[in-house]
């Protein structure tokens, strides 16, 4: 499949707000990109027309109940069957920030035994509490399972921004250790927060410094940081300090490029 034939759907509902820049990221890499309201996908029954579904950042449904909870239930209720088919066919699904929260609330991540009836994780209030907009470093710890990062060298450090107040990944306290082991065994950990030198750090109190995970198949990926805000060099907070810009792009582009390549290769 050629990149220009890949159809990407950025799905939105009231309160979604990072859809334009997410669409831009796919568009500049050559994919066909559409921003669609959930209602439109329901009306046209068109979810299966797409090769990638993206749940972008924002505050869907005002983050009421819990961030992502209402969007997840809406999606399940209105498009549950198509979603199941999409996932069963191993078509990739990406959730960024609020999108990650939706995937967790939907039971798609971690989804050890496939989609779960109830969430198996939570993305909850940061420690220290409050919204934080900041550039951080991430280490790619995935060994090759994740379709969104498998061409990025393992242990490579990426520079991306976070902007959230509920990004602390949490598992059931009594099963915390076993859950971590399962994530490791199945190569489901993708990104962990770190410092510029690679030593681990933790901007929001998240468990095991985890910033992003994928499902067992590596087709569903959720992360708190915003790769779509790190596409061009001039988006970096330190770009003014560099003498030369060897590339017009920035680290976030690697993730979008990676998934488009994965699809192009597969089909």
């Amino acid at each position, binding site marked *: 499949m050629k990149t220009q034939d890949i159809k990407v759907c950025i799905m939105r509902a009231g309160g979604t707000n990072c859809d334009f820049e997410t669409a831009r990221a796919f568009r500049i890499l050559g994919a066909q990109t559409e921003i669609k309201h959930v209602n439109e996908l329901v009306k046209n029954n068109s979810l299966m027309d797409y090769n990638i579904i993206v749940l972008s950042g924002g505050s869907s449904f005002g983050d009421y109940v819990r961030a992502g*909870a209402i969007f997840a239930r809406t999606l399940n209720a209105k498009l549950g069957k198509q979603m199941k088919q999409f996932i069963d066919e191993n078509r990739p699904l990406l959730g960024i920030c609020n999108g990650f929260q939706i995937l967790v609330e939907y039971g798609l991540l971690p989804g050890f035994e496939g989609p779960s009836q109830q*969430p198996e994780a939570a993305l*909850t209030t940061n420690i220290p*509490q409050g919204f934080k907009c900041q550039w951080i470093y991430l280490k790619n710890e995935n060994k090759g399972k994740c379709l969104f990062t498998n061409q990025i060298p393992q242990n490579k450090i990426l520079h991306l921004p976070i902007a959230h107040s509920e990004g602390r990944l949490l*598992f059931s*306290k009594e099963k915390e250790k076993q859950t971590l082991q399962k994530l490791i065994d199945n190569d489901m950990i993708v990104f962990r927060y770190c410092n510029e030198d690679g030593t681990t750090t933790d901007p929001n109190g998240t468990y095991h410094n985890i910033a992003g995970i994928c499902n067992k198949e590596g087709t569903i990926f959720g992360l708190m940081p915003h790769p779509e805000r790190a596409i061009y060099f001039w988006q970096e907070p330190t770009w003014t300090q560099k003498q030369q810009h060897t590339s017009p792009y920035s680290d976030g582009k690697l993730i979008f490029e990676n998934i488009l390549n994965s699809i192009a290769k597969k089909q």
Partner: protein
Amino acid sequence: MKYTVKIDISLKPGHNNPEGEATTRMLKELNYPVEQIAVHKIYVITFQASSQAEAKLKADEMCTRLLTNPVRDNYTISVVEQ
């Protein structure tokens, strides 16, 4: 019949409680000898059900399907007949 249920959601023990801790700090600064704060979320929901038992069952369903995340939340349900 119309029933009103009160669903009280709290954090499972063992989890960190940043909201409670931040509020504790602020109240301490205002000179209250606060030791601990638990932040609960309460929904008061009115709906039709045939019996109190059914109302409670429905409310429990609401909790598992939307209102709570089992990883994080405990909840209790109390039913008030109307």
